[in-house]
């Protein structure tokens, strides 16, 4: 009874807050989104395009202010509305920022400052409407007064939270649900935080913070694409307590075959002689690569699953065999000049305009799937999280998707290679979490004896897994070749260690039975960021190896401590 009446009080509180929120949030959201995005764009322009000259000295500081104040104000508003025990003090703090911003808007110099930073005036891309168009000249006076009043009210309200023991709009159970979901997925969150942390460190360490430009981040993503693709499947291999040491050689081998099939070799000449166009030759090269990958997977699966040779030895053997195979196919020479269609896989971008549509589709699909899941669960009569929590979850995920695409769009759009990464990631995640096959893999890794006694045919599952691994490695090899546009004798050297390290950094346990696909992708980005950042710092390759090795060690050690504490 008590909780019911409590929630009604909460509800009564919510109504005026909601009205205030709308009244305040809409204009603020427009202004702050304008200034935030303008700030990001200007900042990015400044470092990505050398021809762009800043309008005045101290410009960087102003951009930071533009970005910071509205962002903090927005956070303040959101926190005020959802105030929890934890956030109440912060919301008060941010309400002060609100006030500062709204009062700052009254300052006559503010608007011209923003206008002066309009890149459109410099003849560069990305024209944007000015501030007055957004807020509307006619409503300026009224809007500003409203903003000031509301932010004072919000400040009082958040002070009241603190006074009232920090009870906000969330009931205690809702708060607990949020904390629970954070705690349950702590490893996922930690990884992303670690990635952002590494980015932050490189932002500080690289000259002029050049690491954090869309151009560099886009490059970084493109460089990591082939590792990321392969790492997704390495996660599953490690989950079953197996390993694949042959990735680097197989990636190089697939690349050599795909290269031979489309440049001036006897095979390629024969294909061209049949009257096939360049496009078809690119497609044949891709299909050939996939087929060989499948065959290599079958070879590994046969030895590991059915003939009982440890995966370590089988793939160590392949590591040498296929390195030799590359030499046999290329004759030790490098092969250049892939077909344009083929190169596009590793070098080209979906145009920024189309990327926005892709982003929209991804977000809509994601939200639709999550909501459908929710409704189905409700129909089965299972407990679902409250709408507030649900919307928060969706919002966080959507913001993450948005930031990813936004970085890409700011530069040239989404690389085709990353579309492939995303598709492979989604498919493997589906396999891992939704299919009997995936469940069996986790059981085999968690306790092979129990899995066998539960009627799982371990050999067959491991065979299938290596077939999938073969195909995924082939995809990685194709992206790798397309990006470099050259098949060389030592292509892919050492890539297996990058992939295994990515999976492990991404939270896959080497003891088997634990790991998730998304982690492999984030792990690949961590490894890629280390490479990229240290190159930008002009650090020697020597140091790159040393740092990467130590980061791997550190990541696993931290993970083991967490695991111990968790169990």
């Amino acid at each position, binding site marked *: 009874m008590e909780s019911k009446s409590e929630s009604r009080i909460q509800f009564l509180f919510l109504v005026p807050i909601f009205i205030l929120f709308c009244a305040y949030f809409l204009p603020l959201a427009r202004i702050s989104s304008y200034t935030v995005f303008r700030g990001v764009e200007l900042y990015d322009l400044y470092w990505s395009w050398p021809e762009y000259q800043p309008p005045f000295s101290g410009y960087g500081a102003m951009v930071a202010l533009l970005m910071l104040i509205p962002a903090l104000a927005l956070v303040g508003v959101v926190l005020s509305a959802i105030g929890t025990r934890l956030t109440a003090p912060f919301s008060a703090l941010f309400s002060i920022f609100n006030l500062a911003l709204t009062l700052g808007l009254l300052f006559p110099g503010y608007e011209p400052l923003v206008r002066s930073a309009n890149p459109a005036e410099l003849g560069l891309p990305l024209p944007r409407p000015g501030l007055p168009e957004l807020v509307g000249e006619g409503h300026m006076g009224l809007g500003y007064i409203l903003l000031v009043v509301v932010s004072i009210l919000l400040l009082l309200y958040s002070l009241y939270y603190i006074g009232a023991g920090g009870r906000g709009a969330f009931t205690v159970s809702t708060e607990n649900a949020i904390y629970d979901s954070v705690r349950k997925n702590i490893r996922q969150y930690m990884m992303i935080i670690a990635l952002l942390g590494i980015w932050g460190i490189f932002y500080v360490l690289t000259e002029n913070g050049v690491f954090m430009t869309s151009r560099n981040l886009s490059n970084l993503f493109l460089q990591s694409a082939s590792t990321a693709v392969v790492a997704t499947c390495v996660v599953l291999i490690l989950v079953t307590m197996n390993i694949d040491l042959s990735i680097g050689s197989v990636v190089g081998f697939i690349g050599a075959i795909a290269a031979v099939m489309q440049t001036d070799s006897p095979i390629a000449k024969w294909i061209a002689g049949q009257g096939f166009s360049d496009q078809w030759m690119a497609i044949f090269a891709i299909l050939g690569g996939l087929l060989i990958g499948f065959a290599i997977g079958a070879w590994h699966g046969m030895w590991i699953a059915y003939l009982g040779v440890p995966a370590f030895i089988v793939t160590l053997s392949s590591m040498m065999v296929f390195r030799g195979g590359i030499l046999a196919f290329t004759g030790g020479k490098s092969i250049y000049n892939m077909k344009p269609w083929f190169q596009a896989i590793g070098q080209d971008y979906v145009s920024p305009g189309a990327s926005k549509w892709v982003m929209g589709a991804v977000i809509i699909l994601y939200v639709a799937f999550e909501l459908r899941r929710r409704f189905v669960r409700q129909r089965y009569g299972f407990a679902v999280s409250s709408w507030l929590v649900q919307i928060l979850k969706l919002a966080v995920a959507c913001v993450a998707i948005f930031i990813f695409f936004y970085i890409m769009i700011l530069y040239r759009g989404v690389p085709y290679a990353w579309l492939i990464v995303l598709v492979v990631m989604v498919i493997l995640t589906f396999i891992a979490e939704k299919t009997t096959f995936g469940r069996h893999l986790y059981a085999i890794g968690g306790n092979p004896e129990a899995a066998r*006694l539960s*009627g799982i045919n371990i050999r067959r599952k491991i065979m299938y897994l290596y077939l999938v691994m073969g195909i995924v490695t082939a995809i990685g090899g194709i992206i790798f070749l397309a990006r470099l546009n050259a098949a060389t004798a030592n292509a892919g050297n050492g890539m297996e260690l990058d992939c295994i390290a990515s999976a492990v950094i991404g939270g896959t346990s080497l003891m088997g039975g634990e790991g998730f696909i998304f982690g492999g992708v984030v792990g690949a980005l961590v490894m890629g960021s280390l490479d990229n950042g240290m190159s930008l710092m002009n650090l020697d390759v020597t140091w790159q190896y040393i740092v990467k090795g130590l980061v791997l060690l550190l990541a696993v050690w931290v993970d083991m401590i967490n695991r111990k504490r968790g169990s």
Partner: protein
Amino acid sequence: MEYDSDNILEMRSITKNFPGVKALDNVSFTVKRGEIHALVGENGAGKSTLMKVLSGVYPYGTYDGDIVINGQVQRFGAIRDSENAGVAIIYQELTLVKTMNICENLFLGDEIAGRGIINWNASFRRAAEVLKEVGLAINPATKVLHLGVGVQQLVEIAKALVKKTDVLVLDEPTSALSAEEAKNLLDILRSLRDRGVTCVFISHRLGEVMDIADRVTVLRDGQTVATLNRGGFTEDDMIARMVGRELTELFPYKPKRAGGVLMEIRNWTVVDVESDRVVIDNVSLTLRKGEILGLAGLVGAGRTELVMSIFGVYGRVVSGEILLNGKPVKVGTPHDAINSGISLLSEDRKRYGLVLGMDIKNNLSLAALNSLSRHGVVSENEEILSANRYVSSLNIKTPSIEQKAGNLSGGNQQKVVIGKWLMTRPEVLVLDEPTRGIDVGAKVEIYHIMNRLVDDGVGVLMISSELPEVLGMSDRVVVMSEGCITGEMLKRDASQEKIMTFATARFRQSKAAAAALSGGE
């Protein structure tokens, strides 16, 4: 207490508690210098616990009472300390490094060496001497790998002798040996005794005990029942003292009307793949619809091996067939077994039953995942639904089905494994030690679950080493000993003495047969 120089080892009023269980209750155990002293008792009587206290596996401070060796009170912090005091224990599972040769094994951890460099000449000379003491004429450079179990056992004894052992403890030394090997071992023990080595001999084979022991101490329920002197007792006297545990637990036995024959095992013979020993010898067995068939026997009688081989996960089946509802079925893998309606709850739930890192839901559905999925895609909602159903019907105490199985108590873990097998809708449910290591409340709940299953027409084959449980829950009892079925009785005819007689039966018979043979020559 007075120091009696005749006594090489005295364990005085040893009490050892485990959470919820008093494993040893004021046990006194005295061994005289130069005797062979047998220690007997049913499964769970406390023999192993007592020996673990003696060897320092349970260090000083975790038990009450004193260990006195040669008149000195000992405080063992670790196994190493007891070894230094002259106690060597040889366990059932041999601890030799198979890839090393005999000589390396004999001195492992205690090498004859000067400044860290092993003196191989001295080592081999000493090894040859010790091997002669245990009656082995064998090159010490032979790898242990190539030795039979009986010889390995003797090498273990030699290893103990190398360490200047005063008290040699043998835990079930003959259980894996053939009759001849066992006889040879007993002869060697006698000759060692004659040379002054004191020996504690733990065995289920009461015939051997009669044969070799100078004195016998009987344990029951963690207490010393009696110490008997050679010549002053018979095998039946021993059995009478071993059994007789109080039926303290309430068994919710329900009389049932058993239906027709559900499963029949015919002439089932299984060979262990590693040692090539016949483990199950021509066993035939029937299970009826709606009955609980108790499979009793001492540890090592081959009960677990029998059901594991039926389930397709143990040994090489040499002969025999399985009939389900009168029709022969072929079972080569657990998959086949589950599909034909046989499910096996194995004795070690952590090793064979659960994936501890997975949540309850995934553990429950693991064996029945195909029935919960379409085109290989698991219907998560159906899965949650049935997981919830089993959690509530089996009364698994957990905040949610997303709790990891490793976080549950033993009783609840066991219920999860039972639920996993119930999800496969078995006709025959084999329960191997279903209540091992769980508290009394959970035990009674599991008995109720068994009753409900039997009401639904499932045939339950229950292996249990707890005689009261077998007597309390089974409609019919089959007793195994050394891979054979030695007795079968209905509930009303069964008693602890009777089961124990059958459970120790076969060796006596074969010995009698051997005696008859040798007498005939």
